[in-house]
């Protein structure tokens, strides 16, 4: 049984050893004549341990291969051999074989080592016969100077040491090393025990003095022993274990070594007396590799799922500390409970929250792996590629220490390899073509990773021939992937994305197009599995950049928790657009039936509905009013509640207590999005949004594709995670699951802001832009805390100040004594709460607003919403009113007295942003379209421009292009803003010449971003 453990340990250790081996060999290859000593040593040590370990666990195949490799590396280490391409190729071949076998922990996978070993020993022989290396002679029939039977070999037996007999010319050696014989003797003693020594009498001891030693040492390899002692023995002999006489003739020293691959006489094989039996039978038979040579040159070893991982010690230390704190909190908790002190419990609970959160984050970090793990293999890939393609390619790797979840890192190797191959094969031109084009002959591919906007961005750049969008368009039309009009309408960027369509990959026009398109759709789906998004940018003749955005982790996702008939389910937040709450009679009146299916009108658009309980075939239940238990609804016919007068009168009481229209009725419609289609899911209650840990499904559960995973909720109950596209399919809603991007029309629709309308308790109505809000909560007045005359409210783990409108705006009626308040938490830099008495609605604003009352900066303007006069609030002014200096005062100092042109056709937004800019000391001139802006820029000195992208007459893109092409304004700081989807807008903006892009939703970010580009401009 124990054998298995040793073998497993060997493989685990060997894997570790091999981690850097390939890199080291490649580094050696690069360094040519002068290999880096550290690298060589590391490689040597790695091979040496693998050899030793393999011998211990009886894996002779591995041992032989490692040994042969070790010999060659040893020669390099001594300086007798240079790491030529031939040598390194052999080493790499050997490494490949070792890796395959070690990765799968099965020696049977080690095949075709014969040729490699031959090659390696050939190299060794060659070097040796050149006469440079010290040749420890081995003579099997040499006289032995020592009679072993008379020597005390107990220490040899006891510690399983190796026994050498060797002769040194003391005079020569001492002269060489400039030491005394005594020092030499000491040196020898330091590596082992001298069992016997003997001086041969000579004629002239001053010139030469041969001395014979019988040495017992742990060093098994004479090639380490003698160079280590810095001596060249005249002769030496290593005793085999059999030759060592045993004490009673009984025990044998079971040793695992064969001798070094010496030249003259091959050593007898030392067969180990195998004490342990071979590996266990519980492993299933692995598939043997059929033909080694069938592997393509640039193959990437597929990693077996590691059963053990490496974690930085500091992370473990941190965990230990946190757990210690957890224990302290737990103890305090127990004390308080025993004492019945519930007051302090809330304090302890806070602490518990914090500690738990930190533990969670730290443990999550243990799953993070540096991307470098994947990147490092590409050096080899590119090297092999450049050989096979005959092109000179240089690979730059950066950002290797950016970390991603293990499950993602493990799986992006393949698609990335595909992309790198494409770049090398189809992107980079042949050397002659490059020279003709005026480029350096060596092609460059750069692979980089970095953090960006909460995601990890991986980029593959090449300076090859790029992609011609015209060719792409025509090819797409030919293949029937899009119509002529669509193709001409699409921008270059959209054209690049044609490559990612499935139809494209069947192209065999490697010469016509730049050749990419083979399997790109597969790459796209591979990344999509992890929530990754691909973007392609290219300039014909200059090169191509492929950029992938990946989320940091898969294992934890934000989800919406809901219940249906008492059962909890979770829906990933990424699919959820919004939640509509129907109550009272709306539940039955607003849902209409068409052809047996239910629909709901959502802001003028028809939303197909499905009821989760129906889709999942969950039987309706009801709560037994006496026992409060859930019981099956045994009614044969669900009452028809659509008509005002029900035909089956279950309810004896008529009048206001009609259950059909009771105010207690409530229903939630979760608006879900799959691809470009939406549908609504009806559920009874929404519990919360939570960040949940996704646990994989059992095999049996996988069959039911509606579920994407399982999660354990905060209260310990289990909830199933719904797979939304599958749900749509099951519910009969037809959804387009392909991610086609529709060409956006140039309307200023995007500028219509959604506003949240609410009241502060009186008749006045107010509104805030929905995009600036984070959440709306109902809180009890008791939950508010007061300090220094200000009210605060708990938000997550911190407190935020609460603004009551009546305190900052004059002459409005107040909230009254309602025990409950709605608080609206805006999405600005630091959160604050805004008190509201009643949330009225969400509406789309018109673009026209009337300016607000004079001298009042909190209300930007007013608008008629639903027939009521509604005051639109300036969030920033609101915050400033209650907490002056809530935003750092740094902002104010940096952009003081700059002149900025704000180009924006929505008067509402320009008022909003304009007021904010003015509030921090910037002089703002407003233009309603690009043309006006150009005129202003021509005639007045301006420090920077912030421009909307979509405007009539001249849009932001054109404005940027104009400015960039004119001499005077080429380097004017330009910033683009838009309410468009960021992933679409940003690249287009940057393309057109903007320095930066920000989404309209985040005002402070717009400011800080703009400030950055202004400072940059100043420094130029």
């Amino acid at each position, binding site marked *: *049984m124990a054998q298995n453990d040793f073998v497993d340990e060997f493989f685990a250790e060997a894997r570790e050893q091999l981690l850097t081996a390939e890199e080291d060999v490649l580094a050696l290859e690069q360094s040519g004549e002068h290999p880096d000593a550290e690298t060589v040593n590391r490689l040597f040590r790695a091979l040496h341990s693998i050899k030793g370990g393999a011998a211990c666990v009886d894996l002779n195949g591995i041992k032989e291969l490692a040994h042969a490799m070790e010999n060659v590396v040893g020669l390099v280490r001594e300086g007798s051999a240079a790491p030529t391409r031939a040598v390194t190729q052999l080493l790499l071949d050997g490494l490949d074989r070792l890796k395959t076998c070690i990765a799968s922990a099965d020696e049977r996978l080690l095949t075709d080592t014969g040729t490699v070993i031959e090659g390696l020993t050939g190299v060794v022989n060659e070097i040796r016969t050149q006469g440079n290396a010290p040749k420890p002679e081995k003579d099997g029939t040499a006289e032995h100077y020592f009679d072993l039977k008379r020597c005390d070999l107990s220490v040899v037996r006891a510690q399983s040491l190796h026994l050498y007999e060797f002769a040194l010319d003391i005079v020569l050696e001492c002269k060489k090393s400039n030491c005394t014989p005594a020092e030499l003797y000491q040196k020898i003693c330091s590596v082992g025990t001298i069992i016997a020594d003997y001086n041969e009498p000579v004629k002239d001891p001053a010139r030469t003095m041969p001395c014979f030693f019988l040495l017992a040492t742990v060093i098994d390899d004479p090639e380490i022993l003698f160079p280590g002692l810095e001596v060249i023995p005249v002769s030496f002999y290593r005793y085999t274990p059999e030759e060592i006489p045993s004490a009673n003739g009984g025990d044998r020293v079971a040793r695992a070594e064969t001798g070094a691959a010496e030249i003259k006489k091959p050593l007898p094989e030392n067969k180990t007396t195998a004490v342990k039996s071979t590996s*266990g*039978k*519980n492993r*299933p038979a692995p598939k043997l590799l059929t033909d080694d040579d069938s592997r393509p040159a640039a193959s990437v070893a597929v990693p077996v799922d590691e059963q053990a991982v490496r974690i930085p010690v500091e992370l473990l230390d941190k965990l230990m500390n946190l757990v210690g704190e957890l224990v302290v909190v737990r103890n305090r908790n127990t004390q308080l409970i025993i004492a019945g002190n519930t007051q302090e419990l809330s304090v302890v609970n806070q602490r518990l929250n914090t500690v738990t959160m930190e533990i969670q984050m730290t443990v999550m970090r243990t799953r993070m792996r540096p991307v470098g793990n994947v990147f490092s293999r590409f050096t080899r890939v590119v090297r092999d590629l450049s050989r096979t393609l005959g092109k000179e390619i240089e690979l730059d790797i950066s950002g290797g220490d950016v970390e991603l979840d293990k499950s993602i890192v493990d799986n992006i190797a393949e698609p990335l390899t595909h992309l790198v191959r494409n770049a090398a094969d189809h992107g980079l031109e042949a050397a002659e073509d490059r020279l003709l084009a005026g480029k350096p002959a060596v092609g460059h591919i750069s692979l980089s990773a970095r953090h960006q906007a909460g995601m990890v961005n991986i980029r593959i750049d090449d300076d090859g021939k790029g992609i011609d969008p015209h060719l792409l368009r025509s090819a797409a039309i030919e293949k029937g992937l899009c119509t002529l009009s669509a193709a001409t309408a699409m921008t270059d960027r959209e054209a690049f994305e044609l490559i990612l369509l499935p139809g494209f990959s069947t192209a065999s026009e490697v010469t016509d197009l730049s050749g990419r398109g083979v399997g790109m759709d597969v790459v796209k789906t591979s990344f999509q599995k992890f929530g990754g998004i691909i973007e392609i940018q290219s300039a014909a003749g200059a090169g191509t950049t492929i950029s992938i955005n990946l989320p940091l982790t898969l294992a934890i996702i934000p989800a919406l928790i809901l219940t249906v008939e008492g*059962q*909890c389910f979770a829906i990933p937040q990424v699919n959820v657009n919004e939640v509509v709450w129907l109550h009272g009679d709306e539940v039955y009146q607003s849902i209409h039936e068409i052809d047996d299916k239910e629909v709901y009108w959502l802001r003028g658009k028809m939303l197909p509905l499905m009821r989760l309980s129906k889709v*999942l*075939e*969950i039987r309706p239940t009801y709560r037994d009013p006496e026992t409060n238990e*859930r019981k099956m609804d045994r009614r044969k016919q669900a009452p028809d509640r659509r008509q005002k007068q029900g035909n089956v009168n279950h309810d004896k009481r008529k009048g206001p207590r009609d259950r059909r229209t009771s105010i207690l009725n409530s229903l939630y419609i979760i608006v879900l999005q799959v691809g470009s289609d939406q549908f609504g899911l009806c559920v009874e209650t929404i519990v919360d949004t939570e960040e949940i840990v996704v*646990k*994989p499904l*059992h*095999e*049996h*559960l996988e*069959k*039911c594709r*509606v*579920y994407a995973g*399982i999660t*354990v909720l905060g209260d*310990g*109950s*289990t*909830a*199933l995670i719904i797979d939304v596209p599958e749900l749509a399919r099951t519910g009969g809603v037809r959804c387009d699951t392909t991610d086609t991007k529709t060409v956006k029309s140039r309307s200023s629709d995007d500028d219509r802001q959604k506003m949240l309308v609410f009241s502060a308790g009186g008749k006045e109505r107010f509104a805030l832009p929905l995009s600036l809000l984070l959440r709306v909560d109902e809180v009890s007045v008791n939950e508010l805390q007061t300090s220094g005359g200000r009210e605060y409210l708990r938000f997550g783990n911190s407190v935020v100040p609460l603004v009551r409108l009546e305190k900052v705006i004059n002459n409005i009626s107040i909230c009254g004594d309602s025990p409950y308040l709605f608080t609206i938490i805006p999405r600005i830099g630091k959160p604050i709460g805004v008190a509201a008495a009643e949330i009225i609605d969400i509406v789309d604003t018109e673009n026209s607003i009337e300016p607000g009352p004079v001298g009042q900066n909190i209300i930007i303007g007013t608008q008629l919403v639903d027939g009521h006069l509604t005051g639109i609030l300036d969030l920033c002014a609101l915050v400033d009113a209650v907490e002056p200096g809530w935003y750092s005062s740094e902002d104010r100092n940096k952009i003081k007295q700059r002149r900025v042109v704000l180009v924006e056709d929505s008067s509402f937004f320009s008022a909003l942003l304009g007021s904010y800019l003015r509030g921090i000391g910037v002089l703002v001139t407003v233009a309603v379209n690009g043309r006006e802006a150009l005129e202003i820029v021509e005639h007045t000195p301006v420090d920077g421009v912030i421009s909307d992208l979509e405007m009539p007459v001249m849009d932001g893109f054109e404005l940027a292009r104009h400015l960039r092409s004119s001499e005077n304004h080429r380097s004017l700081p330009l910033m683009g803003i838009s309410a468009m989807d960021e992933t679409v807008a940003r690249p287009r903006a940057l393309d057109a010449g903007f320095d930066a892009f920000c989404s309209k939703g985040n005002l402070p970010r717009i400011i800080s971003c703009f400030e950055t580009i202004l400072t940059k401009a100043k420094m130029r």
Partner: protein
Amino acid sequence: MARKKNMSSRQIVTFLLDDVVYGFDIRIIKEITPSVPITPVPLIRHEISGIVTIRGLVVLVMDIAVILGGNKQSIRSMAQIMIVKTTRELGTVTDFRPSFDAEVLGDKPVGFLFDAVGDILSVETSAIEGTPSHLKEHNRHYMEGVINLKSQPVILLNAGKLISIDTTVS
């Protein structure tokens, strides 16, 4: 670790489900839980009663009565579960009868419903008789044999076959 080639007796844990007494070889049982809340899984085949979370571990719960008798699923909100070891946990036990491949147990734990747990019996292998031939072939597949007890026959079940119902059900 000594290996018993021919064990003369085995430990069988017995339990009651729907008025029938069954048994499992105790070496494959990891844990027997008290009554725990069970979360049903809608739309799943009836042999699966739902899932249960024990100390953060998610266990799939199967209903033997449904597998054997094709009964309707009994809806429970709480249940007692007998949890079977995973392949890994079973790992070192090599000499095993029934000789199903331990791989089948998989890496995610599975448990079986029961109503009440009985004694752990020490049973001589000779006392385990073959399954009666007049039983349904479908059911015999899951049974290893019948233990001949004076008071009541105990049906010895093959957990591996129960867990992998997919491959055996026609």
